[in-house]
């Protein structure tokens, strides 16, 4: 293709355009105040844990490498993943409508799906940067107490965490595609992940006695459970009176992977379809 002054101008393939969107979106994310706030929260949490564990030397942490990683990881990993999802994915798509940045990029020879995927990957990488920071603090402390004794379960837990992050971003991008207001999409995402999912899960499993296999937070429990030895039983019944008992369900690793994977795939596809059809009206 030639412009009016004869410059060569061939529109790049989708993969090349995807890389371009990721690169500039990532630069945009890494310069935002919210990135530094989240990084600050992660460093502060890690620093606090380092100080408390170093000072009080709790047995629950220092009895074994697995106990250490289980307790430390359980203190923050999932919260950091959820916060990353809210911070980077909450308004990723709704912002294109509300802030009118969509008018800058969508009118170019690029498919909307490429923009959506590029923004998703950029959010994923930015979130991963925060997650890796927390993981590095965890490993550094673990090595201080147990040197190279890093249990393989910790590696599995990290893999599941990355899968959970993908699922969280899938959901946040879907919600962000549904709502045109950035603040509404961020608020709904935060309420869902911080309160609603946990509440529904508790009500369904404990009161209705039904396995909450459809809840993302239920599947994500494998992140913590894999660090327990032995792995918790799938169904645990706790008597709380002569005729009453609570049923606690623990997702199997297989179930957890399927739930998180399904959330990611279904939400990503739905969000993409909504974004493809949504009018910039």
């Amino acid at each position: 293709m030639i412009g009016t002054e004869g410059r060569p101008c061939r529109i790049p393939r989708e993969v090349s355009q995807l890389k371009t969107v990721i690169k500039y979106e990532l630069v945009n994310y890494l310069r935002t105040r919210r990135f530094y706030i989240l990084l600050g929260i992660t460093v502060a949490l890690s620093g606090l844990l380092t100080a408390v564990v170093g000072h009080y030397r709790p047995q629950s942490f220092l009895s074994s490498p697995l106990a250490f990683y289980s307790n430390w990881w359980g203190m923050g990993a999932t919260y950091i993943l959820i916060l990353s999802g809210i911070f980077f994915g909450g308004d990723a798509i709704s912002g294109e409508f509300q802030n009118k940045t969509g008018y800058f990029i969508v009118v170019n020879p690029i498919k909307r799906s490429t923009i959506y995927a590029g923004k998703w990957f950029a959010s994923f990488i930015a979130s991963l940067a925060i997650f890796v920071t927390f993981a590095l603090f965890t490993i550094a402390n673990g090595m201080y107490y147990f040197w190279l004794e890093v249990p393989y379960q910790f590696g599995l837990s990290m893999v599941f965490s990355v899968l959970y992050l993908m699922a969280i971003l899938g959901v946040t991008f879907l919600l962000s595609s549904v709502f045109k207001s950035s603040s509404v999409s961020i608020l709904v995402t935060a309420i869902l992940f911080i309160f609603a999912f946990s509440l529904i899960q508790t009500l369904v499993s404990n009161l209705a006695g039904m396995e909450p296999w459809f809840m993302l937070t239920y599947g994500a429990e494998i992140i913590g459970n894999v660090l327990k030895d032995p792995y918790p039983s799938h169904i645990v019944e706790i008597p709380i009176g002569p005729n009453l008992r609570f049923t606690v369900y623990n997702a199997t690793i297989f179930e957890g992977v399927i739930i998180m994977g399904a959330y990611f795939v279904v939400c990503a596809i739905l969000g993409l379809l909504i974004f493809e059809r949504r009018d910039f009206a």
Partner: protein
Amino acid sequence: MSSPSIETIGLTKHYNSFVALSDLNLRLDGSKCVGFLGPNGAGKTTTLKILTALIQPSAGTAMINGVDIMKDKKGALAQCGVLVETPEIYPSLKVGEALSMLAELKGVPRSLLKDEVYRVLSEVKMEEWIDSKAGKLSKGMKQRVNLAAALISDPIILILDEPSTGLDPRGMAEVRNVVKGLKKKNRLIFMSSHLLSEVTEICDEVAIIDRGRLVAYDTIENLTSTLMGKTKICEAVFSKEVGEEDVKKVNLIEGVTKVERAEPRRLLLELEGGEGVQEDVLAKIAALRVGLIGFKPHSSALEETYLRLVKGSG
């Protein structure tokens, strides 16, 4: 290279019960500047948004260079530069970075990237802001950067939606000059505007839309002569104040039916007849040696035509 073209066939857009566009058929081709006029809510922006894939039509087809925008957005917009509404640029990116992103997306080779960004910023006189964060720019500056963004890769079709919106008078004049400069090149410019004087100054043809329907599409000359008959309003500009005696003399020139003093150094002349009459009148005023320095059609001719068409379309 084929001639640039924009075409809409039976284009319709509903927002629930509101009909924003109704069976719009329009074909523009060749190298020219077409003004897109219409009252608020007439469907101008809706049309441009459909042409640039920002919204989907309820029915009909929109094509750019023969490519259906709904079927192949990437192909249709490949040779297009677009400025619709007032886009926001990603605030954390520097101006140069934001434009580089678009240049990369449009396939500008890496080796030409810097030059291309500098070139388009120079066109809108924003080159010194290349390293500034986009979020720090004023609304007017952003609009100029947005215009620069539309010029990346030297497109043969430019779709501009009220490009001077939100600018101060100086900014409006600068944008007008930029668009006029772009017209000289081989390209089709489709520009909506509320400013009839701007359209008269820049555009060769106008498409007028009202209540979602096309009410007229022709050259400004043909439209005004069709609706205004042989009456033509011209503006004569003088180097000094025109005295009452001189006004009377101008009024007596054959072909002049009315003279109105718009400003001390500017007269509005109502002429009866074609271009030959204009030529004679111009020569005779010049012969009066009253300091004539400019003579051009007055925008009120288009304004009058526009008002008649829009009023008549209801």
